[in-house]
């Protein structure tokens, strides 16, 4: 039983991380708290819903192709938003930034409702990922495993890019000291745009990957953004590894908690966050939160 819950927890943690990582990266570089991040996740789910029937429905390859295309679509929309709107308020006060990202939440929500309606939609699961691995009397669902593995691949790629490529070096430089990076001739604007696009892509594929597991509806945006913020707070906003640890902590606490403290599992997560906040958010890496 507990092992099944662990699988549940790991999958939820991975999903949370994919969302929270974009949120935290964007904040790390541009100091923008992107309230619309949940909307990008929701958009990824809807685009996947639209694409799956077009690209080889029922196959694993078709599903992942749809997810990646959806991610690219969301990244394009995110980039357009960054270039057309967000770019104008980087210097402005945080209230302005807040309003502009919240405006995007409403715009995406209304457009999605207009196109797909308000009813819950269902993305069919690829046939090969349906069902479970039965060990003894216990059913280990296949889909969460695969999603977790796919998520791990994304995380590995992301960490690889950040640590070992020139883009990654520039990104870390801009996160560490924006002014200095600019003085050295790094194109700050390009970095901001690229990070926003990457964050949007991550949110988009997270939405797409989770789509067959649950339902797709236009309220997913708010459902997901709260948990993503909790993860960021636990990990320290701007701290990628912190977000990874925070996401896994939240996912596993929720899943295992419901088995032993059914009435408390939601509360536990907020408790963890409260403790982290009270302990003055040193982040999980030990450095002071920025």
């Amino acid at each position, binding site marked *: *039983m507990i092992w*099944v*819950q662990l*699988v*549940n*927890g790991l*999958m*939820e943690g991975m*999903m949370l991380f994919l969302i929270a990582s974009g949120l935290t990266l964007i904040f790390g570089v541009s100091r923008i708290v992107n309230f619309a991040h949940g909307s990008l996740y929701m958009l990824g789910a809807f685009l996947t819903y639209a694409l799956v029937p077009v690209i080889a429905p029922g196959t694993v390859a078709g599903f992942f192709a749809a997810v990646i295309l959806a991610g690219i679509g969301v990244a394009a929309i995110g980039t357009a938003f960054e270039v057309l709107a967000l770019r104008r308020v980087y210097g402005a006060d945080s209230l302005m930034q807040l309003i502009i990202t919240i405006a995007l939440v409403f715009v995406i929500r209304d457009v999605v*409702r207009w196109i797909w*309606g*308000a*009813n*819950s*939609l*269902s993305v*069919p*699961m690829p046939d090969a990922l*349906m*069902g*479970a691995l*039965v060990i003894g009397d216990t*059913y280990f*669902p*296949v*889909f*969460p495993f695969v999603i977790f593995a796919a998520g791990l691949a994304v995380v590995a790629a992301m960490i690889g890019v950040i640590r070992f490529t020139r883009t990654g070096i520039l990104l870390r430089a801009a996160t560490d000291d924006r002014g200095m990076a600019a003085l050295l001739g790094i194109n700050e604007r390009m970095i901001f745009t690229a990070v926003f696009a990457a964050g949007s892509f991550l949110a988009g594929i997270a939405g797409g990957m*989770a789509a*067959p*597991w*649950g*339902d797709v*509806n*236009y*309220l*997913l945006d708010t*459902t*997901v953004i709260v948990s993503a913020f909790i993860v960021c707070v636990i990990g320290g906003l701007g701290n990628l590894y912190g977000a990874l640890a925070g996401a896994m902590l939240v996912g596993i606490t*929720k*899943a*295992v908690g*419901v*088995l032993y403290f*059914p*009435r408390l*599992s*939601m509360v536990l997560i907020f408790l963890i966050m409260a403790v982290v906040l009270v302990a003055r958010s040193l982040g999980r890496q030990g450095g002071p939160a920025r």
Partner: protein
Amino acid sequence: MLARNLIGASALAIAAALAGSAHAEGKALKVGYVTGLTGACAPISEDGLNGAKLAVKDLNAAGGILGRPVELVVRDSQTKPEEGGKQARELAAAEGIEMLTGVCSSAVLLAVNAVAAEFKIPHVAMIGSTQKANIEAFNPYFVQTQANATMEAFAAAEYVAKKTDWKRITPMGFDYEWGHTSVDAFTSRLKELRPDIEIAAPVFTKVGEANMGPYITAALANQPDAIFAAVFGGGLVSLIKQGQSFGMFQKSNLVTLLTVDTLQSMGDAMPKEKVYGIGRAPFFALDQGAELSAFIEDYRAAYNEYPTDWAINGYDAMMFYAQAAKAAGSAEADPVMAAFAGSSFDGLKAKGLTMRPFDGQMNAPAYVGEVNFDPAYPFPTMKNVEKFDGAALMFSEETIQAMRDAAK
């Protein structure tokens, strides 16, 4: 002079055209329709409104109510009680509405019901249901035209009790008023009917939970023969889809709220068996008559989909009101309320429906059946649907009185 005459003439022409388009004499009878067009209730609210609009169309085509054209004044409650209450108040105070309906969420229902009592306007409930409105928050202007949450849970308990090979049950529910009321009612009635059944501690999830996996594992930990789940919408879709990956339909059965909108959302992802659904007005299982067929045809023509339970309830609520107002010969609140109590109504969802003035509850039936794939429809339906007579599911007047006294 000529110009002035022309203006006068065209104004007259416009007025005549306006009156003509309403094609019924008399002042319009305004119906305040407060519903959650945005927020958690949106999918359901839209269906209910579509049904009500068709009713208004049919009523006006037949000359309106008491010769007055019917007009829906629609307001969005955003599925928030304060907003719903505010909208209802504004409609009552400024728009001159003579009836309130449309509310979806049970919390909004209570807020709107308070406004209905204050302004003495008949409030006809058609989607939202909570026994509070019949018991401690009851007022004489309240009419509930469907089986309330308690009655629905009782129907599920009656149904489950007949499954003699089911010995262990785990209840699940959304962690808010409706979920808890349903789980409590189901548990208490089932214990009475089948003392031998073991009922595990209920598992509650937050409303609309997308990752049901952990809760499914927890519910299956008790090795139940069936799970009773008071969940709906997206959370329910998640429960059924994910349940299949956890062997839920190998190890257990599921009894839950399956309205037509959920059946449509599930589509092919619905398991072929072991799912049992409670419906409020499943069009495919109702007594088929000319009126129902005509309604289904009109609905499909207008909205390009099959009517959901909410659409049928929306239509019935408007028609029940129209019948009462005609019988009363007036749209005044008190005569209309008296007419509600005194008349028997043949709706789309059932015939011979009456309203009990003691708590405003209509003896509306609940339907429970098992999932079925009928090639005639592009989505799963239900077979062997059992109709539970509403009268047998309602609390007796003594019980209600006792509950009212206890709530004081």
